[in-house]
């Protein structure tokens, strides 16, 4: 029992279950999953489906944070990837040509990787603080996205493109499958191969890692490029879902949600140890919270406050120091009592 209590993912899981349970009171058949026309439907499926872009961005963010960095530019990359893909597709003579769509998607992803690598170069090559280095692209990237779409909302009408964010495959929403593949790939690279160890080592003590023969620069470049890629895929998903690209609003503030998801998932902002499954849980918690806000009918003007309140509570429950203060007050040894009073006098 205490083993379970101490598990890193215990508290995030409790919170997620509690949030889901809360929905039961407001939505009938909340947990029901149905098969309609060969597709799975249900609130739970929707949470994962709508949470898919956030999960992707958070996965990339997890690795960046593990190196004790941060990437504020993911929202801009989301917008740029969607904008570029839509621009290319709208220029196709046949918007439904699979080859043309694949080309557009590929190009958008390559650009996302390049943008990520640019962040990596600023951080590792030049030595700019990550928060500043990625702030550059965060601001400039929005401009770039608007430049690509010419300040307009570019709409497309392409069924292959629509598949990414809105389609189904093997009874599941295609986005869920993409997330599963990216998650599996990340887990493979970091846990099966040794990338995870090197990332955690660089995040834990960069100078010691360098002296141990790790190319910290290479690790950082890889991680930022990967984060760019994840944001790019998320951007395609978001724009595909609405069949349009909005350089202004696509992926707005997603970096904050992603950072939050990472932290709720148990990866410390100071770097070092990271947890991919924790991050997925964290992203799901945030998505569930969003869903809950709608389903219980929080008035729109207070949603942000409500969300902030829940997040604060989540973070407090997560904090071992807070739990110790609140729950374990009376578990101190009784013998220490008089001494503790003494202490007050001594330190006065």
């Amino acid at each position, binding site marked *: 029992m205490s083993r379970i209590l101490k598990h890193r993912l215990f508290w995030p899981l409790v919170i997620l279950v509690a949030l889901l349970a809360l929905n039961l009171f407001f939505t009938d058949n909340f947990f029901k999953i149905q098969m309609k026309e060969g597709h799975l439907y249900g609130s739970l499926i929707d949470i994962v489906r709508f949470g898919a872009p956030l999960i992707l961005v958070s996965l990339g963010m997890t690795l960046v944070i593990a190196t004790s960095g941060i990437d504020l530019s993911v929202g801009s990359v989301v917008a740029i990837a969607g904008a570029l893909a839509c621009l290319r597709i709208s220029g196709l003579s046949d918007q439904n040509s699979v080859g043309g769509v694949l080309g557009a998607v590929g190009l958008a992803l390559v650009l996302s990787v390049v943008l990520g690598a640019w962040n990596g170069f600023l951080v590792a090559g030049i030595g700019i603080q990550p928060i500043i280095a990625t702030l550059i692209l965060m601001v400039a990237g929005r401009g770039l996205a608007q430049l690509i779409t010419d300040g307009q909302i570019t709409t497309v009408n392409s069924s292959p493109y629509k598949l990414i964010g809105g389609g189904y495959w093997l009874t599941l929403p295609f986005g869920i499958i993409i997330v599963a593949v990216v998650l599996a790939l990340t887990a493979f690279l970091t846990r099966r191969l040794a990338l995870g160890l090197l990332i955690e080592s660089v995040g834990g003590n960069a100078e*010691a890692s360098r*002296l141990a*023969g*790790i190319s910290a620069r290479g690790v950082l470049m890889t991680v930022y490029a990967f984060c760019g890629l994840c944001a790019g895929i998320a951007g395609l998903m978001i724009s595909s879902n609405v069949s349009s690209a909005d350089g202004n609003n696509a992926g707005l503030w997603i970096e904050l949600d992603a950072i939050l998801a990472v932290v709720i998932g148990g990866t410390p902002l100071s770097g070092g*140890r990271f947890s991919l499954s924790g991050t997925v849980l964290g992203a799901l918690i945030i998505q569930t919270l969003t869903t809950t806000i709608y389903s219980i009918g929080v008035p729109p003007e207070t949603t942000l406050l409500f969300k902030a309140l829940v997040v604060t509570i989540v973070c407090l429950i997560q904090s071992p120091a807070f739990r110790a203060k609140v729950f374990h007050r009376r578990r101190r040894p009784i013998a220490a009592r008089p001494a503790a009073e003494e202490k007050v006098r001594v330190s006065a």
Partner: protein
Amino acid sequence: MAAPAPILRMSGIGKQFPGVKALDGVDFRLLPGEVHALMGENGAGKSTLIKVLTGVYDIDAGEIELEGRPVAFSSPLAAQQAGISTVYQEVNLCANLSVAENIFIGREPRRLGRIQWKAMRRRAAEILARLDLDLDVSAPLSSYSLAIQQMVAIARAVDIDAKVLILDEPTSSLDAGEVAQLFRVMRRLKEQGIAILFVSHFLDQIYEISDRMTVLRNGTLVGEYLTSELSQVELIGKMIGRELADLEKLEERPPAREGAPLVEAEQLGRTGAIQPFTLTIHEGEVVGLAGLLGSGRTEIARLLFGADHAGTGSLKIGGEQVNLRTPRSAVSRKLAFCSENRRAEGLIPDLTVRENLILALQAARGWTRPIPRRKQDELVEKYIAALNIRPANPDQLIKNLSGGNQQKVLLARWLILEPRLLILDEPTRGIDVGAKAEIQRLVAELSDGGMAVLFISAELEEVLRLSHKVGVLRDRRLVAELDNDERLTTDTLTETIASGARS
């Protein structure tokens, strides 16, 4: 000697960490005006006893009395305010603050609430002068070497108006001159009636300064003794629980040996760090470096490993001209460097013992070729046994190991690589007598097997016992290169270090 009433008394102290009973029913007392040595092997529980006393950890069992009144400190600050001033084993100052700020942190001289910077700097300089240190007190602490940082920590601690002064391995990276300086200060404080708790693995220092000692073994109390009544051999017996027969087995001087040149440095240098030097290390040769603190020993090591860029000169490894731009390229040529600064340049605190052990090997293989789990287990098990790392649990976080055991893990990290040249900068720092002999024997064995070793140590006996050749440094210059023959003794070596001339 009629014992006065103890100023500090700890009785029945117990402390349990997950999986490790660090202290079990330990009694300890400290008399005013004495220097009391706390002795024990690596991981015996010395630092833990100090930490439960000063409020870093809660105690699980037992009582602490200060001047007859029961106390339980909630934080080191509370302990300090109650008159217990402590230098912890790992120097825990703020490297990015200035020297003066570090000395006065938390007790800055103020007037009307405003910090008086000028007075603070002046007083800091005075305090340091008492330890014979002449530093720029407004420079950040990080601009000074580890030894200086250690001295600053000591200066801070002795300045605090305290009844009890605790020094956990304060001398681990100091050389003879600074130790003498520290001892002078300690004797003065002792005369003022201050009780001093002192931890060190240097037995000579213990016998020079301490009046009384308490010996711990595996978290339990072995006993309390008067230093004058316990011989060194008896003490070692009490610490490790058996006779240490191995210590003297090592021959006085290593046998001479002919090997091909492995590393040839030609006028290699770096402005501000080390003047151009020429040094050849042959296969199977142990080259010792001797010199005072800041004389440039570590700087030579860092240049040979590519940790810093050389400004001048050339370097050949195995006859091939190389330009070491990063440690990575040095590692790929099978050079290894175990830094003296284990906290800043060695440990990855949040990783496990296993991960820290295999880190350099994994880095050398690259991330696409993970070390198979079975191979990891094999290597880790082998080196935990070979170096007697305790607790022998590969999945323990390295930050939870005792200082000496952390050092052993870092050493193992490089041994796993089976390097051609192993650069050891103070490898026996903080390591107990038994393990020290073990490591010395290991170095001798490895060099028999053809590995070259560059051995840096402030302990001249150790340098002489292991090295074929000793390079002497002074003021960032390699001033002499001496063959280790009958004429070379610690005395002649000390003289060369001091005068800078060949004797």
